[in-house]
């Protein structure tokens, strides 16, 4: 690898201070941590309380997502469309492949993460490209593409503003659609000012700085890589959604474009975008549609002045075929809006997605991540990181029963555990379940708990596993229930359910 970087946007990146905590590190550079460790560190991190309050604010009017009658109609239609392809995912992909190839797109199927990396590396190598511009995409994060290409001596520049910021800081994105949601404008200004010139901590000059630096890379890169929001089987059309226009720059300037999608991104008809695009924007708490929905049907034609000469579509499996055949299949309906994350009390308490130690955090990540072939041992525990409060099910624009799937995920996780701890644990749960199913036994246990709580000093309890947590908490100071608040919050949707 040459010492002089080709990228203008990354030149001088070594001067950026690495102030990030380990649990927020870019996935490729994150030390192995158990879920218990990373959540404990995240909860104790000084920035977490501010971030928690900020995330909670975003879930209130006017930012929060409401299911108005119009939005509900979109939601019903969108939920139905997303389930159509689940019946025969492979069939839908065959149709997509046929129609995409008919218009000149080169379609590749990657069974594993390694296959996907290899296919894309070969495309980049075949054109002797050393600089790649990239738009934001979860699937390329999932396959660890940028890091892999860098390992092969290929510079990869993230062009989405939020992704560019986290790339410079060597952090992982903290939320599905807003990767730098965890950073303040002052932190971004610090990062950008590392290049030598002091940038004012305001969004306008910061964005202008990034625009200027990234522009030269858009011009120089021979290969551009994007994700795909929806791929229409009937026409082979790829729909890429952005507000910044970076995917449009990639679909315009480089000679070669590679679009990467998970198998689940296929939709039956291109006209379905009329439902799915507004639904996605609504669920992502956008007041309006995003600036651009770019519909690509094949590479540039002979009479066209620009656009890629080659358009590659890489369809990644990484466990999705198995998911489609399992009771967890509805997780493949996900359209990556991030709404389940924004409403999740656990996600908020942890100050965002970093503590999950996975590309997909929050409720969707709790279900999806352990099912991916590439998931690690630590990630298998992710279904446990939920209170099962049900907010995510209410928030999901395509009506994925996330709490049910989280419970199924826990069942799977527990099923893989072995040894004496497992035997004792399941014995205790069975006893508890039996007791709480009988009114007398239940009351007896509550009374016993009162007596123990009163008579046994807290210092003693602190030495007993499980009871320790109880002892830490002042059980007599249970906060009063805000009845009016509860009524306002839950009565309206209940009444709507009744009238249906």
């Amino acid at each position, binding site marked *: 690898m040459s010492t002089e970087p080709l990228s203008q946007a990354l030149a001088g990146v070594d001067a950026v201070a690495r102030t990030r905590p380990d649990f927020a590190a870019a996935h490729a550079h994150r030390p192995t941590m158990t879920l218990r460790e990373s959540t404990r560190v995240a909860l104790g991190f000084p920035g977490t309380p501010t971030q928690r309050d900020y995330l909670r604010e975003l879930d209130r009017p006017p930012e929060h997502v409401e299911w108005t009658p119009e939005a509900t109609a979109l939601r019903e239609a969108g939920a139905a469309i997303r389930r159509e392809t689940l019946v025969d995912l492979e069939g839908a992909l065959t149709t997509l492949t046929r129609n995409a190839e008919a218009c000149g797109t080169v379609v590749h199927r990657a069974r594993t993460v390694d296959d996907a990396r290899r296919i894309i590396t070969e495309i980049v190598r075949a054109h002797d490209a050393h600089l790649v511009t990239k738009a934001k995409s979860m699937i390329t994060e999932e396959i660890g593409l940028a890091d892999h290409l860098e390992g092969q001596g290929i510079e990869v520049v993230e062009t989405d503003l939020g992704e560019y910021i986290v790339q410079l800081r060597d952090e992982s994105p903290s939320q599905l659609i807003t990767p730098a949601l965890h950073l*303040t404008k002052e932190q971004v200004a610090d990062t950008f000012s590392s290049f030598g010139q002091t940038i004012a901590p305001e969004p306008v000059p910061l964005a202008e700085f990034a*625009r200027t630096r990234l522009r030269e890379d858009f011009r120089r890169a021979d290969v551009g890589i994007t994700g795909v929001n929806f791929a229409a089987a009937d026409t082979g*059309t790829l729909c890429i959604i952005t507000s910044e*226009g970076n995917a*449009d720059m990639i*679909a315009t300037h480089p000679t070669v474009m590679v679009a990467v999608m998970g198998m689940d991104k296929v939709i039956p008809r291109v006209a379905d975008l009329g439902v799915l695009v507004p639904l996605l924007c609504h669920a992502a708490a956008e007041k309006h549609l995003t*600036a651009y929905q770019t519909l690509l049907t094949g590479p540039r034609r002979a009479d*066209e*002045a620009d*656009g890629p000469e080659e358009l590659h579509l890489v369809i990644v499996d990484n466990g999705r075929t198995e998911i489609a055949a399992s009771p967890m299949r509805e997780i493949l309906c996900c359209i990556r809006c991030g709404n389940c994350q924004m409403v999740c009390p656990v996600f908020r308490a942890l100050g965002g997605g970093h503590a999950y130690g996975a590309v997909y955090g929050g409720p969707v990540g709790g279900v999806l991540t352990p099912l991916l072939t590439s998931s690690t041992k630590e990630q298998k525990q992710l279904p446990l990181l939920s209170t099962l409060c049900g907010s995510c099910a209410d928030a999901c624009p395509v009506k994925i029963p996330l709490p049910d799937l989280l419970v199924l995920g826990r069942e799977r996780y527990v099923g893989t555990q072995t040894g004496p701890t497992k035997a004792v644990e399941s014995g205790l749960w069975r006893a508890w379940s039996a007791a709480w199913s009988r009114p007398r036994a239940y009351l007896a246990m509550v009374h016993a708990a009162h007596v123990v709580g009163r008579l046994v000093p807290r210092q003693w309890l602190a030495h007993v596993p499980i009871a320790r947590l109880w002892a830490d908490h002042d059980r007599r100071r249970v906060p009063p229930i805000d009845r009016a608040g509860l009524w306002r919050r839950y009565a309206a949707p209940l009444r709507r359910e009744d009238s249906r």
Partner: protein
Amino acid sequence: MSRAEEFAAAATAVGAVVEEVATWLDARRRIIEMVGAAPTLVDADPELADLSVTPPEDAWSAEHGVSVALGAAAQTGTVAVANGAGRARTTGVTPLHHTVCVRASQIHATYADLVSAVTSIRPLPTMVRLTTGPSRSGDIELKTIYGMHGPRSLTLLVVAEA
């Protein structure tokens, strides 16, 4: 509210500038007024054929881009522009300012109607770009800034003449 008015309101809400002109001649005059001598890319279209502007040296030096929409959606303030021979993809994305002419008769009621209309063309253009307002980003503290990678300003000329 007429469909053109609804379109204007929706597009304005998302940061576009909407102007109504009676004829294509008026549209051409207005475009010349706006771009002056600045290097400008103009998409091939019979209505814009005799527009005399300064051509840019290359796509990167263009300050303005001018396109004609396939159609629009009143509900969301969206315009659809397709590429093709003489209509480069770069026109609507690389210059700092983009102007799109929209025939009032081609404003559909909803976004879904617009999508159905533009995706029923065969063969489909290799690129159809649905644009709602100028390029923007909310990645820093969720504050919207305009002109992230694409145009900072989007002017929509609604032409009454068919």
